[in-house]
């Protein structure tokens, strides 16, 4: 049985800011359909079950931060921090940068934001975010200013039947630089939905690094949409690690609006049990001399499912573009499923594009080699898995972040 679209949003409360966006969002929310199995983009990630829930938004009043989750998810990292709980800003746990040329605060405390993202006009999920977003990170960095430490954006879902809506806005001026860690946690007793959107503008010659980690217990439907716009000669690196999550959809869109951009985006996923992880990526080269490199690796265990859809567009005038895409998958158990679909559309004639997509099992020869030295089957597999995803994780620049991701994966998959 499926609940109705209208009744689903009945208990969502919108705070009083960014009214223009909210009213536009509300209109589209009425008109846009809930995606179903016939909707191509959602074919392998049906969300009908979500509507069965009776979810509501929460404030943060009177709540105690749960002991089992550290407010600081990367404890050894020298960083700034902005913390949210069930969509609401937690000021007592946050620590903002104060520097010339940097504005960093919760979105709810900013007078007006010029959102350019139009996801709410295309998808029901996006319209919900525009209408109900509760808070998020607001960050602008002025020309030639480099943020001295990474900012950790930590969101915690805590409680059953929660609906959380986050909207982050990042804008880097010419030659500016920033690193952001977007971390999502949830307590084991949690359920509901977490719907987040990140809009990032990277001006010419600026750089943005984002490490995104989902480490959520409980049963949460997680929608995460990142939209990044790169101007001339800007650099972007975004890593998406799904460590743990009941149902996760990562959508990443990178739009190169100037020449000479460099985009690196990687991801790993290792769902177990009945988990579901979906990665949809789009790289759009509309200008010459850009480079992009994409590496996603996953292993599906148990009865879990994973989806990879990677689109690369190289438009007519985007000559001398060098685009690389690789997606590899290992199906570890018989009941597990992977749906992988690389899509390349190339309209320019002087470009270098390569892509590969593989779905396979553990390398039997490698496994036998390890076992023939007295290493047990489970440990041999762990060694191979660690090497396989470790390759992707090694692209994280900060040791503290990388070590924490490896530690979480190790704990979960018994690597050591």
């Amino acid at each position, binding site marked *: 049985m499926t609940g109705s679209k209208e009744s689903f949003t009945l208990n969502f409360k919108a705070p009083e800011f960014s009214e223009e966006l909210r009213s536009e969002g509300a209109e589209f929310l009425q008109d846009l359909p809930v995606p179903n199995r016939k909707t191509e983009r959602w074919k392998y990630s049906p969300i009908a079950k979500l509507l069965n829930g009776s979810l509501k938004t929460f404030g943060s009043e009177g709540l105690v931060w749960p002991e089992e989750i550290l407010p600081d998810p990367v404890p050894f990292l020298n960083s700034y921090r902005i913390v949210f709980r069930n969509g609401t800003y937690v000021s007592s746990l946050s620590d903002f940068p104060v520097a010339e040329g940097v504005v960093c605060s919760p979105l709810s405390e900013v007078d007006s934001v010029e959102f350019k993202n139009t996801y709410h006009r295309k998808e029901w999920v996006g319209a919900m975010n525009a209408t109900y977003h509760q808070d998020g990170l607001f960050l602008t960095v002025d020309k030639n200013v480099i943020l001295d430490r990474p900012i950790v954006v930590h969101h915690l879902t805590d409680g059953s039947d929660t609906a959380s809506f986050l909207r982050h806005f990042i804008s880097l001026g010419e030659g500016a630089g920033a690193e952001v860690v977007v971390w999502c946690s949830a307590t084991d007793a949690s359920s509901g939905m977490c719907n987040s959107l990140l809009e990032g503008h990277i001006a010419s010659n600026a750089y943005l690094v984002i490490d995104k980690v989902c480490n959520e217990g409980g049963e949460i439907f997680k929608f995460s949409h990142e939209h990044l716009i790169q101007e001339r000669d800007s650099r972007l690196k975004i890593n998406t690690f799904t460590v743990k999550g009941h149902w996760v959809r990562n959508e990443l869109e990178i739009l190169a609006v100037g020449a000479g951009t460099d985009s690196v985006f990687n991801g790993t996923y290792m769902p177990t049990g009945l988990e579901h992880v979906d990665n949809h990526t789009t790289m759009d080269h509309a200008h010459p001399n850009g480079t992009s490199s994409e590496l996603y690796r996953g292993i599906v265990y148990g009865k879990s499912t994973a989806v990879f859809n990677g689109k690369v567009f190289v438009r007519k005038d985007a000559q001398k573009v060098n685009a690389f895409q690789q997606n590899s998958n290992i199906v570890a158990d018989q009941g597990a499923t992977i749906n992988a679909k690389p899509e390349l559309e190339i309209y320019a004639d002087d470009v270098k594009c390569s892509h590969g997509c593989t779905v396979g099992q553990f390398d039997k020869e490698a496994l*036998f*080699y*390890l*076992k*023939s*030295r007295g*290493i047990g089957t489970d440990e041999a597999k762990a060694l191979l898995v660690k*090497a396989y995803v470790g390759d992707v994780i090694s692209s994280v620049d900060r040791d503290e972040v990388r070590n924490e991701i490896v530690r979480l994966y190790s704990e979960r998959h018994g690597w050591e």
Partner: protein
Amino acid sequence: MLKIKNLHAKAGETEILRGLNLEVGPGEVHAIMGPNGSGKSTLASVLSGREAYEVTDGFVDFDGVDLLDMDASDRAREGLFLAFQYPVEIPGVSNMNFMKAAVNGNRAHAGLDPIKGTDFLQKVKECASLVELDGRLRDRSVNEGFSGGEKKRNEIFQMAMLQPKLAVLDETDSGLDIDALRVVSQGVNAMRSSDRSFIVITHYQRLLDYIVPDFVHVLSGGKIVKTGGKELALELETKGYDWI
């Protein structure tokens, strides 16, 4: 040490071993020679537990245990070592982590605690010098980017680290130049002892100038058709296999 009785094995639908019998005593070195396709490498694979082969008949007793009843890891832990004809490259797994896992896997089986870091490094140093394997190769991913000779030296290094009761060398000499062959053979000879046995599978007599066997067997059509001393290898070198 090892008793193989009436061993039959097939790969897919093709029967490759057809009633092979062989006994290897402690401290003995047995060379197995034979034409291409006679079943030499299949024997190595079946002994070490490669899953692609199915044993249809026969029995293998390894120092009192039923070898065929165990999976590859346990065979190794019982003291069997296979030096691969084509050592596998494993990107992302460092040679050192690999060896540490192997040494500790074997120790756990013997009821011992994991090896201490300093003891491990000392052991690595000793074994690496045995086959002139330099530090650069030790620290790299398993066999990744190694030359053919380096891969074979890495096999003997691993053998030295694991101190097996019985080592099966599967065409360890193939593709080696004379220097590498000398280094590999020195490593093997240094490990010969009264309680360690070797089965040396080779296509070429040349190796047996360096690793001198106690027995030479000719494998043909999936069974051993002739057995002799080391002089048999020389005879095969000059006359070929057709006269047997």
